[in-house]
């Protein structure tokens, strides 16, 4: 979107400061969609920050139960992180493929993203199941409540992302790279990358700092 400076009109605006920058009118649909979705993502990040805050407040409240250092397994978390970061890369590849209308690379990129996402979810699920089996479920202490909620909330987002991803593949299959499908793809990519950013937060605040204590 370009702003055009029309100095000739300067006097139409009584408050003009040097050059008047005229607003060119409504933005294109693509920009509006992406912008709105971006605003949504910001609000989602605000929600996450509440769970982060709760974790920060409660992480010491173990009520005689285990602390973070006792239950976190660095190896699992490392694999999870690699999966998610890689999946962001493949998701980017799929977006580029969509932009140049290349079906093969689009499907491949999305499929790999999907597999990586599912591996991430399986590892997380096993971690949770294992903790619960050992009696360290979210009801054990406030620390564990906040841990399960924060990490689980991210996991729920990833699950929703996988569902969305599959829907996107089906849409491209059924409708091709139509303008509205492409706009949706753009939103999906934004969503998936945002999950990555949040995971970096989870990884650092929960697992790295948590293990150090």
């Amino acid at each position: 979107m370009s702003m055009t400076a029309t100095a000739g009109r300067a006097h139409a605006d009584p408050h003009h400061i040097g050059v008047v920058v005229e607003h060119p009118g409504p933005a294109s649909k693509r920009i509006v969609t992406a912008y709105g979705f971006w605003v949504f993502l910001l609000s989602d990040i605000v929600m996450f920050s509440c769970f982060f805050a709760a974790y920060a407040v409660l992480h010491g409240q173990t009520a005689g139960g285990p602390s973070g250092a006792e239950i976190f397994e660095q190896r699992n978390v490392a694999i999870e992180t690699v999966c998610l970061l890689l999946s962001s890369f493949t998701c980017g590849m799929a977006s580029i493929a969509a932009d140049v209308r290349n079906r093969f690379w689009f499907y491949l990129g999305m499929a790999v993203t999907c597999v990586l996402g599912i591996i991430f979810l399986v590892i997380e699920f096993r971690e949770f199941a294992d903790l619960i089996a050992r009696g360290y479920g979210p009801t054990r202490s406030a620390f564990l409540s906040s841990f399960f909620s924060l990490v689980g909330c991210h996991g729920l987002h990833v699950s929703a992302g996988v569902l969305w991803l599959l829907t996107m593949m089906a849409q491209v299959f059924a409708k091709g790279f139509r303008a509205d499908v492409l706009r949706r793809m753009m939103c999906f990519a934004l969503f998936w990358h945002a999950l990555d950013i949040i995971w970096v937060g989870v990884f650092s605040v929960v697992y790295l700092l948590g293990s150090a204590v």
Partner: protein
Amino acid sequence: MLGKLDWSAIPFDQPIPLVAGAVVLVAILGVLIWVVVKGHLPYLWHEWITSVDHKRIGVMYILLASVMLLRGGSDAIMMRIQQAIAYQSQGYLPPEHYNQIFSAHGTIMIFFVAMPFVIGLMNLVVPLQLGVRDVAFPTLNSVGFWLTATGALLVNLSLVIGEFARTGWLAFPPLSGLSYSPGVGVDYYAWSLQISGVGTLVAGINLVTTVLKLRTKGMNYLRMPMFCWTTLASNLLIVAAFPILTATLAMLLLDRYLGFHFFTNEAGGNVMMFMNLIWAWGHPEVYILVLPAFGIFSEVVSTFSGKALFGYRSMVLATMAICVISFMVWLHHFFTMGAGPDVNAIFGIASMIIAIPTGVKIYNWLFTMYGGRIRFATPMLWSVGFMVTFIIGGLTGVLVAVPPADFMLHNSMFLVAHFHNVIIGGVLFGAFAGFEYWFPKAFGFRLDERWGKLAFWFTFLGFYVTFMPLYIAGMLGMTRRLQHYDVAAWRPWMIVAAFGMAVLTIGVICQIIQLVVSIRNREALRDRTGDPWDGRSLEWATSSPPPVFNFAFHPDVRGEDAYWDMKARAQQQSLGHEKPEYHDIEMPRNSPTGFICAFFATIMGFALIWHIWWMVILGGIGAFATFVVFAWRDHDEYVIPAEEVARIDRVNIEERRSLVSMAGAI
């Protein structure tokens, strides 16, 4: 099979809610039958329920708010009567019923009256003021509205099936935790707010994007009408604050449903964290409500003074300052909970700082009126009434923002008086002013002035008679939420307040009569010009009610007060309208997505409240399926051909031409 739901959920032993519920049920059934028998159902379905037109959605929001105002108002009447007679007696309401009433009253008034009212007005007006055809995401807009309606429906359902929370409108734990509130009351509260909160967030995203990305040509930021600015500020606050509410309620629900320990007394839970989180949302929330009202007053005051808004830029600055500062004062709601003097002092000072931009606004309104040609039409009356009332509310706000004073006044009737002072005198007066001001735009005829003025005076006086005594009772030590009391000194004030409530009620009745009378006389009150108040911003440039596409052309804005400018230019150029060239217009198609989503959300919410798990899953699948089906649609727009646009627009142009030439003749 039905979870916790059985016959004991229906309070057969309590006549009041049952009778009230029965009356409402009969009324709803009656309306439904009337609609079906008269054959209005297809019209309602195609023109309203599935409509994605921002104007229609705005009207439906306001309708919802008005209905809920009556519900919340009857709660208020019951409470005032109870406190007037409950001196050394039990009164007529059993305590747990009284507790439900004040919780429902606060919840309803904030979430289902004030919020939908201001969101409705913003929806209705902002795209028109920006000179555009629609909001950024029309279908999502409809989803947002219907989710709000779902929340309202669930709250009302609690009247006859089960119970409502007895915890106050913010459901503080540990009282709202499972051990102290084992019933479904808090679940009703939390799920209805959770669902309607999603609707509000959607509306917020929509309006932020609309204001930032969809303005018409030449509508620079510093040419936007004030109402658009306050809409922007208010919706930025929604986007930033409502996720906090969502997260907080999610934590409370996890505590209640799955035995988590966020806010419990055991296993390390932290109740203070709830206070911090809920008020980090709650304080911005009061500004989410009042900022749009400030915008309405700015529009009304400048229109009815026949002058441009004084200090437009300082007004913008003040709005954005309030937007930012309102996030930094939340702790003043729990000064008394032991955060220590340093923290209290910082938050006390931060709170008082908000009074500065608010004061700037008040002075700007006064200076706008100064030297203007003022017309005291009904919207202007509400605005002037607001200025007087809100100053009192703001001053008492600054008073309770002084920590030592707050130790005396916290949770007293003084506080009740303060926030009613700002919310009724600020938000509600603003909503009424906006309602009177934009009604002709929405429906094409004015409201009856005589009944409007009566409504104003009764409401205004009733407000003072009801709430000034509460300040005094608070200073005499009366705490809030008392079911009954033994202190003789409080009693006279409670009786005066109950009397004031009666006066207020007359005001509301006048407003209903006004509506009925105006609809009856609509031919006499018809406004063909589309510009009944000699307005200054673009919503008055189109016909009333506006066509679906709002404007045949995107208006080209050259300065502040866009429409005023156009009128002035048209007069100078002796109405030099060349034959305009019309183009096809694409508009979004109607869609039942919003309604169907809300249908499943209602099922899911109800099932969650009563622990009917299979139904929860069914509702979830239904909602997801709706979205996929919606995403699968092939045609989401239809085309209005250029000839049709021309035909509709020509009428408007003719009317306007005669208007301008008449004004020129005078």
